[in-house]
């Protein structure tokens, strides 16, 4: 109750995320339906006790398919953000700590990556590599890593001059030890905030690319593809697109609220916010 008053964003966002993840993970056991089983006599059914979200154009249970979509979206978002965090953190630590020509060179590369509109860069990479889950993750990570590199570099630059880092250097700690033991802990807070907000962005980007047909390929019922597919029946049966879009929005809202709430605890000075870019 105290948390509700002090930081409602954190609580509401966290609850939404927990629900979506539970929905994705436990659905195969909870739902009596199979993702692919069709029932042509029961197409576009309205929500009922038997089908909580109704059925799609082939009479498949929409609840089950949305859960499968949740699993795909969350997995792809988490994988791409994880790769981006890993690469970005290493790049940021090294450039911020050592400075010099490495810093200069790598930061110009970062600038060039930032010179592309985010979705456009992802589309370009998919154009070359082809669609599919793995390429989708790679292309999103290629868009996202620059944010983490910049944040981590900024924090590292500031930490390099702090007394206890100088002290560690004076007692002969190795560079690796200083980076991991002294500097990395300061980086974690802003990175977690940024990554939480980044998961929301990744889900929007992933479903946008799936919407265009460049995401995980059908028959996987991604949210973006279901939404796009639903537009074929927009005049008569708009339900399909509405549900899929709602699923995306609620999930993204969850990550955004949770990230906003986390910031108060982990990144009070707002390092993450200054560098955060929105994709869509």
């Amino acid at each position, binding site marked *: 109750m105290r948390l509700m008053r002090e930081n409602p964003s954190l609580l509401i966002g966290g609850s939404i995320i927990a629900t979506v993840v539970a929905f994705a993970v436990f659905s195969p056991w909870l739902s009596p339906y199979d993702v692919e089983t069709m029932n042509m006599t029961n197409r576009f059914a309205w929500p009922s006790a038997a089908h909580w979200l109704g059925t799609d154009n082939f009479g498949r249970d929409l609840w089950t398919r949305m859960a499968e979509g949740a699993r795909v979206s969350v997995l792809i978002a988490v994988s791409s953000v994880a790769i981006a965090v890993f690469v970005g953190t290493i790049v940021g630590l090294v450039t911020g700590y050592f400075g010099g020509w490495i810093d200069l060179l790598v930061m*110009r*590369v970062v*600038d*060039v*990556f930032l*010179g*592309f*509109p*985010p*979705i*456009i*860069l992802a*589309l*370009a*990479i*998919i*154009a*070359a*590599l*082809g669609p599919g889950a793995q390429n989708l993750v790679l292309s999103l990570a290629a868009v996202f890593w620059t944010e983490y590199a910049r944040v981590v570099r900024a924090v590292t630059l500031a930490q390099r001059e702090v007394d206890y880092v100088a002290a560690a250097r004076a007692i002969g700690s190795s560079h690796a030890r200083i980076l991991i033991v002294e500097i990395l802990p300061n980086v974690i807070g802003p990175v977690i905030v940024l990554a939480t907000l980044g998961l*929301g962005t990744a889900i*929007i980007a992933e*479903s*946008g690319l799936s*919407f*265009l*047909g*460049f995401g995980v390929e059908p028959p996987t019922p991604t949210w*973006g593809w279901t*939404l*796009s597919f639903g*537009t074929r029946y*927009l*005049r008569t049966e*708009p339900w399909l*697109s*509405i549900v*899929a*879009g*709602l699923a*995306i*929005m609620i999930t*993204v*809202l969850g990550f*955004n*609220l949770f990230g906003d709430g986390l910031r108060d605890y982990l990144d009070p000075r707002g390092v993450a916010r200054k560098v955060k*870019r*929105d*994709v*869509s």
Partner: protein
Amino acid sequence: MSPPVYPAGSLVAKPRLRSNTMLAYTARRLALFVPMIAGIVIVTFGIMLLLPGDPAIVLLGEDASPEALVEIRTALGLDRPWYVRLAAYFAGLIQGDMGRSIFQNQPVADAIGARVGATLELALLALAIAIVLGITLGVAAALWRGTLVDTAAMLFAQLGVSMPVFWLGILMMLLFAVKLGWLPSIGRGEPLVEALGAAATGRFGPLLGAISHLAMPALTLGLNSAAVISRLVRSTMLETLSQDFIRTAHAKGLQVTRVILVHGLRNALLPIVSVIGLRFGALLGGAVLTENIFGWPGLGQLAVAAISQRDIPLVQGIVLSFALMFATVNLIVDLLYTVIDPRIRLE
């Protein structure tokens, strides 16, 4: 660089010095633009190198005839090393040659030239909507902080930030085209500039057509950025309004609205302007989605067709065009910075 020191009482020297530093900043910013563009061209060129396996087979498919494969290898210069091709790519671009589309029998530059206007029109109008709506909502929320206005504006912003642009577009289409039948669901009217020209001569039909087609796509594309901007405006306004010079302005007995709009907003404008530059990148990405929902005949529609066919030269041209538009808007924004910010930053 240390801040310039003005000798006491030298009222004349100050403005001159300032225009000099402005000039220096502008020159430096323009000088940075060139290597930036070069970097963008190199990455764009690199798309071709990412192709897995034999590019000629990837592009034309497994069952392409040997003659066709030879032809495309020569056309794309695949038989030459990559650095020779990169140099040739640069040389071509300088002459306005972006190569030839593989599947649309025309030069890439022509295919892009025919569509870039539609995308710019859409993106710039969406940007205008985002700025006007975002600043209005943000200022209102800051002015009436803690009231229903604030809550409503920030609820809109939170939803707007979380709402995927393609879903918003479909909801709008459902409401305004399918249910109400007020607006056409797809296509573009006459180009806005031409329609405005016609309106100037007293023919308002084209303008009406242009606007009715533009309304939904532009609003769809702009709303998300409006939400982002309104949140930023609110927080910077609140920060600015708590500062000493605002108290002074109030103490001087100035009208409250004047203090807020002239003193407050003007000083809150800097972060807003810089975020607008970044938003344009998101807008261009969103344009790809928006164009494909509303059948808007711009670069985004062309991009999806090109990617589906793996028409890499065309994809490269489109990606490059998007990046150039983004870079140009950011350049303009950075230069605007020097006009708005009285304290110029020179690092």
